[in-house]
């Protein structure tokens, strides 16, 4: 297989090559590509084709469930016509994007990585998907995830696990003393984190410029941190959930994964706003914003929650977190320790509320109207039972059972109501901190850098989720916006991300701070070429690519 002709400068959006790998800073990737498209330096079709061939070359990452080659090329062609007429729809016109496979897309299979929905073709598109398409974005494919978005590794879907592109990076391989030989290759690859691992890997490996994920307990921010990309969780109620196959209605939000903070702001500008089809979106009008290029953080107050300094936190991540705090302080910001006293209860509280809503949301999968239906036909009841056993994996079934238990009449007060009250307390912790003068919180996103798959699967999904969600889930409980920014490489040469949590609906402030930090951090670009060499070698060796 011939290596695809990839121009890293174009893939990075640096049409004028001002981005050197050493500098590592890429402001406004999408807007630069957009400019290149407008000026005719590259055409939407070319861009689309490059992404498609790169997807083929990186197939071993297993980031995509469906690659929508035909529709993407058609969309690219339409975009090209618009550019030629000088009538581009905006910054996203002609830009390849990917969408996590738990968003409904008209006419395109949507599986949630589950047998229950294998072969399911939705008759409508999620609002956020439609908004992207209305702006002329080119939908390049549906990305892989943990089944029904339940998990923190993107390892538990029926299409197999997603591989972290950094497993094949020059940075990682050099640090780990790996050479180009393949001896332990297949057993040492790393997880992406989850559950939006496919989307994170897709953005990270340059096969698209932005991707939609979902975030219920950290599912966008976690893989963003592990894959070295920006992962934004907007305020609950800002972005429509219509068409996002629900996990926990009171916590889910569509997440945005991009290569830089400016891009996240661009995509948010397209997606945010009231949707009559989602009664939980706020009515207030949303004004899309562009982030300032000159940012002064000296007037800011950054809060460091002391309860997030836990034993499980790796020393490297702790060091990076510290260094970041110092960075703000040196720039004149006020950096103070704050307390979120109910943090220790959040895992259990999250577990009760999450499983209860999951049990409710999964009740619709009965095999009658759509999706998998078992052949068992002795009675309707037995058909339901067999369908749901065959259609759902252990993780999903476990959560359904737990959730139903908590919702039983005799347990409702003790568990569900109690958890609602604790949730209120957790949310109030943030309210108190933000009303005491703190503008933004700075925390780690994950406990450590990405681990190898073989190590990750030693613990079960529930254990892993409980561990890995610890820094991220509070933002879902309280509905606040949060963003993970790739900060530095670990000793192994793997990405470490830090999280900023902002005030409700203050995405402008949150992303402004994040952008400043991104500029300071100068996180390096993933060295792509190595990965393609690997792909070449792999294909020659005809190694099986399933997990």
């Amino acid at each position: 297989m011939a290596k695809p002709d990839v121009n890293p400068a174009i893939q990075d959006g640096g049409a004028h090559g001002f981005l050197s790998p050493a500098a590592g800073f890429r402001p406004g990737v999408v807007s630069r590509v957009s400019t290149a498209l407008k000026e005719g330096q590259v055409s939407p079709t070319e861009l689309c084709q490059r992404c498609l061939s790169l997807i083929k070359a990186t197939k071993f990452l297993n980031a995509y469930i469906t690659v929508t080659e035909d529709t993407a090329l058609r969309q690219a062609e339409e975009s090209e016509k618009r550019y030629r007429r000088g009538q581009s729809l905006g910054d996203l016109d002609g830009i390849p994007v990917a969408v996590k496979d738990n968003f409904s897309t008209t006419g395109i299979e949507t599986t949630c990585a589950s047998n229950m929905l294998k072969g399911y073709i939705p008759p409508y598109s999620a609002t956020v998907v439609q908004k992207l398409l209305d702006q002329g974005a080119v939908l390049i494919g549906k990305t892989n995830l943990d089944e029904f978005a339940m998990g923190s590794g993107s390892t538990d879907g029926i299409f197999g696990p997603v591989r972290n592109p950094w497993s094949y990076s020059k940075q990682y391989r050099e640090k780990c003393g790996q050479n180009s030989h393949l001896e332990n290759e297949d057993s040492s690859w790393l997880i992406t984190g989850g559950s939006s691992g496919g989307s994170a890997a897709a953005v990270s490996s340059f096969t698209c410029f932005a991707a939609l994920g979902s975030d219920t307990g950290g599912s966008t921010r976690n893989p963003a941190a592990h894959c070295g990309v920006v992962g934004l969780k907007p305020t609950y109620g800002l972005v429509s959930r219509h068409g996002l196959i629900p996990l926990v209605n009171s916590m889910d939000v569509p997440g945005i994964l991009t290569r830089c903070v400016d891009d996240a702001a661009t995509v948010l500008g397209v997606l945010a706003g009231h949707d009559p089809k989602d009664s939980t979106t706020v009515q207030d009008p949303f004004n899309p914003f562009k982030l300032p290029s000159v940012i002064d953080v000296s007037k800011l107050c950054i809060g460091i929650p002391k309860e997030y300094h836990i034993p499980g936190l790796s020393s490297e991540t702790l060091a990076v977190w510290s260094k970041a705090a110092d960075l703000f302080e040196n720039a004149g910001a006020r950096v103070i320790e704050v307390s979120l006293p109910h943090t220790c209860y959040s895992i259990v509280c999250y577990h009760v509320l999450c499983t209860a809503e999951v049990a409710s949301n999964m009740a619709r999968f009965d095999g009658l109207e759509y999706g998998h239906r078992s052949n068992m036909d002795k009675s309707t009841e037995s058909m339901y039972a067999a369908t749901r056993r065959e259609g759902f994996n252990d993780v999903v079934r476990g959560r359904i059972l737990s959730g139903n238990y908590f919702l039983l009449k005799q347990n409702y007060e003790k568990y569900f109501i109690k958890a609602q009250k604790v949730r209120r307390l957790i949310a109030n912790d943030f309210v108190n901190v933000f009303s005491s003068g703190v503008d933004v919180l700075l925390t780690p996103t994950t406990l450590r850098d990405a681990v190898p798959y073989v190590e990750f699967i030693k613990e079960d999904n529930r254990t892993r989720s409980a561990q890995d969600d610890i820094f991220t889930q509070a933002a879902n409980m309280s509905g606040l916006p949060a963003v993970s920014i790739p900060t530095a490489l670990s000793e192994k040469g793997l990405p470490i991300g830090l999280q900023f949590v902002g005030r409700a609906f203050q995405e402008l402030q949150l992303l402004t701070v994040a952008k400043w930090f991104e500029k300071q951090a100068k996180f390096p670009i993933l060295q792509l070429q190595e990965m393609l060499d690997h792909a070449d070698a792999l294909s020659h060796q005809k190694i099986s690519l399933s997990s």
Partner: protein
Amino acid sequence: MTGLALSCSINKKSLFDRKHYFYADLPAGYQITQQRLPIAVNGNLSYTLYVGAKQSQMVTKNVRIKQIQLEQDSGKSLHNDARSQTFIDLNRAGVGLMEVVMEPDMCCGEEAAAAVRELQLILQTLGSSQAIMAEGQLRVDANVSVRHPGEPYGVRTEVKNINSLRFLARAVDYEIQRQIEELENGGTILNETRAFDYKLGCTIPMRDKEGKQDYRFMPEPNLPPLILYDAKSLPANIDDQQVVNIDWIQERLPDLPSVKRARLVEQYGILPEHSFTLLNEDGLMELFEDVVRKTQMNPKKVIGWVISELLGHLKQYDLTVKESPVNSVSLADLLNLLERGVISSSAAKQVLEELWKGEGKTPLQIVKEKRLELIQNQRELDQICQAVMEGHQEEVMEIKAGNKKVLNKLIGLVQRATQRRADPILVKQILEKKLSQ
């Protein structure tokens, strides 16, 4: 609107819940309803019954409204037992419904039917619903229990599959009877759901609920609390179109049936029973008032024509008021002719029969065609009476001798001679005058 019309307290904040169970016609696996806090509570519905030997006495009764809640409809299941198949029609699944829950204040099928009838009229007046039971726009489930006076309420059964007011009365009465017999034979009543079989006129047990089902109620996370405002609580800068103002709605409520009936009685001097009939038939009240406006005839006489004659004909031919071949204009014209003495009452009935054919003729045209005009010429009448008297001396003698009944025979003879074109009252006067001479 319905809550206000039923004198309920409107909850300015109400909540939505999910009620979970698995059934083929429930695609989401749960129904959204208002279990914790419904939109309206504690109301009242007054209705009337005809009681007594001849069903002529009107009695007013009351049933308390426990609550009104908003919820989702399920789909429809159609069973084909022959092939062990069930067909599911999901067209109505998810559509919003209003459930009105009444307290057990009714004692028999007749009361139930009357209460529901009044509710139907109210819903139709408000425009909340057409409430046609046969078309499933109003669905009624009856909860029936029996007990000895003074004892607490007995175990209740729920009776479904009732498609008309008549079947409602029958189903309730059957179930009462069944339960009494069951208990008197030493049996017990199960808290179950039964279906009304309209062909057999009885209730049969339906799907078995396996003891008590736990619906695992949970707040509906996708629907925030429903907030309604009144004039006092309305926030200042809010868009009128975005909120529901209870006071605004209250001001605009149309006259409820009971108010309309009272007004009709007061304004036109008709009997209360008449007002019920006018409201019971769709469009009849409007027709009546229209005719009254267009004619000089006393409304108390008009009502007779509208109910006995017009409505009588409609019932005979199974037509609605809208489908009537005789409209208010024709009827008013006809009654005017009668009122002015141009025709007699029996002639008017003849004209109505002709009008009913719907050939587009006016009453006046028909009168002329059929030569139904009363003889107006006094002298002509006088001569005819005279002639009849002269031709029937025997009868004249009898009347003069004191047998007044024979006068009717003479009147009849005059009618025959005039081909019924003589006003019988006038004829009687003329004859009496002559006889006393």
